[in-house]
């Protein structure tokens, strides 16, 4: 099918008009560009009080006493709540995707007897304004008995001190696949074995907007309204109803704009529980908006982990077996239970390669640091470890790293392919995306340039990585998504989905998809999202599911209305339904010029003239449907290739080119797809080179401002080049999830490029982030003379 973009972004294809596949401008943009967005901090309600947490300054300790009298004496300070006030109100406390029976970490909303990390919420101050509330929080005196903290997670399992005494151990849980011992013979008999221990530093989502919530309880009606910065408004409602024992339909959660989430705003954490609990006690609406320091102290940690990894190869470089022993730091209060995600690292470690046998163990441990939370591609360590190991293997075997991958990457004629841990990949293109990325670089030309540069004393490198990722989870609460569409009496269309703008362009996506299925002009379609009072339950933005699941919901719902419009038009125009076509809000009879009726006329008939409708067609043009995923996951894959120059004296890294070839199926909006890839990739670059949520040995965080927690800036990032391969998924429209992949592929591509640049010095990189100091230390001073 050939397609050509028209001026307004549509594609003319065989006479039909389609908006999917075009770079249509976003519907979110006009309000956001002009300062007219509505983020949680923009909500202001009459009489609203401002909340500030008193947080623990010690990593581990007992609370001996709390004296709030000085704080309460300040004019304008209304309440100081402690655990004794709020925690007894908790009824039930569990996340829908985890379920009530999982062995969860106990989470007191406010710390009761013990504090377990610096930043642990101990008391909540409510005052007339934010400045006052901060003054008062300083005046709350908490007496702590400081205890030795468990900070080094690699020694947590053996530590005398316990983060959660009742748990009896600092090991949260352990899962394993096939025992490594059963592969001993394969490794012993292999032509080549490569082994490494690879470490990733703590870093995390760091959305530009922190977390926040406004709670507004009406005692007379028993209704609670919550405005939240969230990726999952319906989950907040459900969670809150269990927490407070309030009926779900008495709670309304609203969000119009959320300033980024990347996993951090999927689940309710302890601070947000405390807000929910004060709602009924404050006697006024309450707003809490965390500042940057709180966000870096207490909104959670991710990525802190290491693994012993090994691969066995035959004489031709074909992989015989892969094994990973993975340990991850879960902090004091992981949200949710982290053991399942850690097992995903083990299950996915074989990646998109022909790996015949594999073993894994996955261990999660508690420490006295911020709790582990989801961050874009929560299991991405499997790709980091595998791809860094493959490059080390290639160097040891004297083989080109591209050739080593080429020999082992899965071909489409081998699909579906079950990896040795039982993950069955299908409809992916690992080899095609890899070759496309290398071709875009002109790999051979780069190698020649690299050789010339080395002769001139300059150190260039190229790094590559490939991965396969399960998107669009099709189980539990994630397995369905609903849409309601109302073609209003004037013919204008409203689409109601759970959604909510967190940066993922889901409003634009929904409008594009709906206009296509209904055959209406895109300017006739609007969408209402992020309001639990009017949208059907949806599990929110997580697991790269929004686009692909919403496509199903819109398709199933809009198809009902499309058929109804066609029936009414056929009746009005005295034609057969098969001959009616709907294009740009007009139904016409194919091949009969002039025989047409507008969608507005059809709607007027449907609402105002019900007796003239054809038999069997109901009045009105409103429908709701709920799509159920057909598969447990939709596989998506990509290859990243990056080049860099490293200054061996300073250790400074300059990224030169960055190429991503990905297969996310047909693109609903290429600009949105590329924007997601770019954003994830730059987060991955930040993780490889800059970002570190560091603690000192006593458990004091040392990166609580943007002066110490370094985010990538415009001077750190290369131009990102995109290659697209489109393989249809089995789901609606053939679409796949694309939100997380960039953050998965980027870190190893960057590490491998830097390691390649420093290969002449025999450098082996196994620890992130690649700071200038750490890289300069890899170059022996005598090598530079």
């Amino acid at each position, binding site marked *: 099918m050939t397609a050509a973009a028209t001026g307004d972004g549509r594609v003319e294809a065989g006479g039909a008009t389609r908006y999917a596949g075009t770079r249509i401008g976003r519907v979110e943009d006009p309000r956001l560009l002009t300062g007219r967005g509505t983020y949680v901090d923009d909500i202001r309600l009459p009489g609203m009080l401002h909340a500030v947490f008193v947080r623990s300054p010690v990593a581990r300790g007992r609370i001996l006493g709390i004296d709030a009298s000085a704080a309460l004496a300040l004019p304008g300070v209304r309440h100081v709540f402690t655990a004794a006030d709020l925690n007894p109100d908790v009824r039930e406390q569990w996340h829908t995707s985890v379920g009530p029976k999982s062995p969860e970490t106990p989470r007191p909303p406010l710390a009761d007897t013990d504090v377990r990390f610096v930043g642990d919420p101990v008391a909540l101050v409510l005052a007339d304004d934010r400045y006052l509330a901060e003054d008062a929080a300083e005046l709350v005196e908490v007496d702590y008995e400081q205890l030795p903290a468990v900070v080094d997670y690699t020694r947590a399992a053996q530590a005398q001190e316990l983060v959660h005494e009742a748990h009896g151990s600092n090991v949260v849980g352990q899962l394993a696949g096939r025992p490594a011992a059963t592969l001993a013979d394969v490794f012993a008999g292999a032509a080549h074995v490569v082994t490494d221990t690879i470490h990733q530093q703590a870093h995390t989502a760091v959305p530009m907007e922190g977390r926040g919530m406004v709670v507004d309880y009406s005692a007379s009606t028993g209704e609670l309204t919550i405005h939240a910065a969230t990726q999952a408004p319906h989950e907040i409602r459900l969670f809150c109803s269990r927490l407070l024992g309030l009926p779900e339909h008495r709670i309304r959660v609203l969000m119009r704009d959320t300033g980024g989430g990347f996993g951090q705003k999927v689940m309710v954490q302890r601070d947000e529980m405390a807000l929910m609990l004060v709602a009924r006690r404050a006697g006024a609406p309450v707003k809490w908006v965390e*500042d940057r320091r709180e966000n870096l102290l207490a909104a959670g940690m991710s990525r802190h982990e290491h693994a012993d990894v090994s691969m066995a190869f035959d004489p031709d470089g074909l992989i015989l077996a892969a094994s990973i022993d993975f340990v991850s730091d879960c902090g004091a209060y992981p949200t949710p239970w982290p053991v399942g995600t850690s097992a995903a690292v083990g299950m996915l470690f074989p990646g998109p390669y022909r790996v015949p046998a594999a073993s894994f163990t996955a261990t999660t441990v508690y420490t006295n640091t911020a709790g582990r939370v989801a961050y874009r591609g929560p299991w991405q360590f499997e790709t980091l470890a595998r791809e860094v190991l493959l490059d080390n293997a290639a160097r040891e075997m004297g083989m080109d790293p591209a050739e080593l991958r080429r020999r082992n990457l899965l071909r489409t004629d081998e699909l579906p392919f079950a990896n040795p841990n039982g993950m069955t990949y299908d409809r992916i293109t690992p080899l095609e995306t890899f070759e496309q990325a290398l071709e875009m670089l002109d790999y051979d030309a780069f190698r020649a340039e690299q050789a010339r540069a080395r002769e001139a004393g300059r150190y260039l490198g190229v790094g590559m990585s490939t991965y396969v990722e399960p998107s669009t989870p099709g189980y539990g609460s994630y397995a369905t998504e609903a849409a309601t569409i109302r073609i209003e009496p004037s013919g204008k269309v409203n689409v109601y989905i759970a959604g909510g703008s967190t940066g993922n362009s889901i409003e634009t996506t929904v409008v594009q998809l709906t206009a296509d299925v209904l055959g209406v002009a895109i300017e006739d379609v609007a969408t209402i999202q992020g309001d639990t009072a009017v949208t059907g339950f949806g599990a929110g933005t997580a697991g790269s599911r929004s686009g692909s699941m919403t496509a199903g919901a819109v398709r199933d719902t809009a198809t009902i209305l499309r058929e109804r419009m066609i029936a009414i038009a056929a009746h009005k125009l005295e034609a057969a339904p098969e001959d009616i076509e709907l294009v740009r809000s007009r139904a016409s009879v194919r091949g009969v010029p002039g025989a047409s009726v507008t969608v507005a006329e059809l709607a007027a008939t449907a609402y105002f003239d019900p007796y003239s409708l054809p038999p069997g067609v109901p009045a009105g043009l409103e429908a709701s449907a709920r799509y159920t995923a057909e598969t447990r996951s939709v596989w998506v894959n990509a290859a990243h290739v990056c080049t860099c120059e490293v200054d061996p004296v300073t250790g400074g890294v300059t990224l030169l080119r960055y190429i991503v070839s990905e297969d996310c199926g047909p693109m609903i909006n290429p600009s949105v797809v590329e924007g997601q890839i770019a954003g994830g990739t730059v987060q991955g670059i930040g993780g490889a080179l800059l970002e570190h949520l560091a603690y000192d040995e006593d458990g004091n965080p040392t990166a609580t401002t943007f002066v110490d927690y370094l985010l990538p800036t415009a001077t750190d990032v290369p131009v990102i080049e995109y290659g697209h391969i489109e393989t249809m998924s089995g789901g609606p429209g053939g679409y796949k999830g694309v939100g997380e992949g960039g953050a998965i592929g980027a870190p190893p591509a960057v590490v491998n490029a830097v390691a390649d640049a420093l290969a002449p010095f025999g450098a082996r990189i196994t620890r992130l982030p690649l700071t200038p100091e750490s890289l300069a230390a890899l170059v022996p001073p005598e090598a530079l003379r």
Partner: protein
Amino acid sequence: MSDVQVELTVNGQARTATVQPRLTLADFLREECRLTGTHLGCEHGVCGACTVLVDGEAVRSCLVFAVQAAGSEVTTVEGLGGPDGELSPVQAALRDCHGLQCGFCTPGFVVSITAFLRDNPRPTDQETREALSGTLCRCTGYQGILRAVQQAAGAETAR
């Protein structure tokens, strides 16, 4: 310390308010003027989300007290587009180039790019990157923002 009266002009309108001396300009704009387009991403001068123009200069409003801006002309993101919602050239270029996703950083970019292109209408890529390096975006990887600056610069020069 007792409250003080400040008078200043915000987006062309005279404003008078009695405020605490410690009230930041950012909070003055957000709370007193109810101009919530100015965002707070760090409150310590690094992220640039709170950037506004004070007498034409791009300033981080989280680092300035409202009283320090007394007598000045302040322009926020709300004051840069047309009154009927029409986008300024910088705003339009950001939209065309997919230069925003969640939009939280966007007001800071709109304001700082506007000031930057006024002072340097035909910037090189390196100048652009350096000018933007004081404003953080976590969503876009800066790709669309950098393209937007070039497009807006081209649009200005084409006039």
